[in-house]
């Protein structure tokens, strides 16, 4: 029997008059990288924040390790590592101090010196966090998420704003983490990243589940949707752009 870590059942999230997520259901299994894709405002972060227990769904139910996240935050946070889409750190703190700070939160934390070494950040240990480059800051956010020795890692737009080299370095780190047995929920706009890393994906549009399954199944789904426009050579990004409900009218010749 497959080991299900996260079970999302028919959740909806409402902000005043706006429905961010509608009747969403999916699950995340042990040892997989589960990607969530979709355009801006599709409800990806709202859904993930409900799994993290930072928000409560308006209706429906979420179980993480069999527990309701917002009611069992203290227990759940001992088992999951989180990287938020938008979060910062105190201005005048150094890398090694921030590691000590976060390690103090957990009962049995990972050795942050070792993780610092594994993520190639040990030379920056005495640097102020605000002086780190974008790529180094992202690595640091992975490090902090790894401190609880998590069984599940939730990463929200981890590589946004990074150069291609830094992104690929982070992909390698994530592949290592997955291979060590940690499941990952990965929210991303980069389809090459999903193609490289993910086992299964959820495609959200306007808060609705358009597809959930493996990458191979997603290609079959897209083939049906695109009918005669389908091309076997399409990359995941090309498929995504063809499926996108917000097709851009911008023509390149306008720019030239």
């Amino acid at each position, binding site marked *: 029997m497959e080991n299900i870590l996260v079970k999302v059942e028919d959740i909806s999230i409402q902000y005043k008059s706006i429905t961010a997520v509608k009747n969403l259901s999916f699950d995340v299994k042990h040892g997989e990288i589960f990607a969530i894709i979709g355009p801006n405002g599709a409800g990806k972060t709202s859904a993930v*924040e409900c799994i*993290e227990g*930072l*928000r409560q769904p308006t209706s429906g139910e979420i179980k993480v390790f069999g527990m309701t996240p917002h009611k069992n*935050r*203290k227990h759940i*946070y*001992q088992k999951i590592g*989180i990287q*938020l889409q*938008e*979060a*910062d*750190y*105190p*201005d*005048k*703190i150094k890398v090694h*101090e921030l590691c*000590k*700070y*976060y390690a*103090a*939160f*957990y*009962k049995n934390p990972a050795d942050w010196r070792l993780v610092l070494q594994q993520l190639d950040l040990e030379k920056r240990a005495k640097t102020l966090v605000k002086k780190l480059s974008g790529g180094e800051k992202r690595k640091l956010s992975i490090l902090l998420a790894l401190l609880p020795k998590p069984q599940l890692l939730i990463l929200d737009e981890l590589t946004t704003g990074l150069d291609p080299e830094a992104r690929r370095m982070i992909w390698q780190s994530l592949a290592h983490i997955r291979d060590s047995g940690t499941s990952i929920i990965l929210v991303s706009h980069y389809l090459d990243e999903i193609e490289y890393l993910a086992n299964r994906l959820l495609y959200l549009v306007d808060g609705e589940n358009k597809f959930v399954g493996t990458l191979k199944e997603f290609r079959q789904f897209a083939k049906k949707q695109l009918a005669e426009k389908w091309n076997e050579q399409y990359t995941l990004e090309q498929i995504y752009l063809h499926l996108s409900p917000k097709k851009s009218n911008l023509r390149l010749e306008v720019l030239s």
Partner: protein
Amino acid sequence: MKQAITIFQLETKLYLRDFFSFFFTFAFPTLLLILYGSIYGNEPSDFFGGRGTIDVSIPAYCAMIIGVTGLMAFPLTLAHYKEHRIYKRFDATPVGKGFIIWIQIAVNVMMTIAGFIVLLLVGNILYDVTFDGNLFAISFAMLLSIATIFSIGFFFTAIARDSKMTNLLCYLSYFIMLFLSGATMPKEMFSDTLLTVSKFLPLTYVVDLLQGVFTGDLLTDYTVELLLLGAILLSCSIVGAILYRRKNWV
């Protein structure tokens, strides 16, 4: 407990690394004390009812330190951490933001008391300052004053929609109270208009209360000050907490 100690130590380091907080908590009141001491000395004066300039200045400078931590360091940190979603990240850990905020309050209170100690030591060593006050009365007055001024800073962060607005409220209130409450210049030098203005400033009652208990007056001689400070503490804490419940931390 070990967890709280580690976080407390790191938050203390962060406090001391902030130049503004460090300078105005420790250096500025002491420099002011030395400056006034070198000009006026600490000889008994009729102007201060038979006490020396430094005798009456020390409790006033203690009020100044409470102003720095309560109206600047603590609320500005709170607003900065909230706006930059630092608390949100803490909320995604087993301890949560509430625990961190309580530690930050503890660090700021400790720094306030450390500022008092530095000031008292310098006063004692350089100007032979002694106090006739009862230790319990002085401690009670100091703690009530700290709690009240901190509650005002907390209230500012609750009503302000962003850190810019918090900065404005904190800087304005701090500098107005610094100069018009008797914390920097003795109220004996104020005109009638300034004295009237000072009656509307909470720090004025802190200065009066501290100067009183430091010279050996009883707490019961300051019922009005105690009641006023208590009322401000309760109202700012309760209204601030209600407003915070409605804030979106996510």
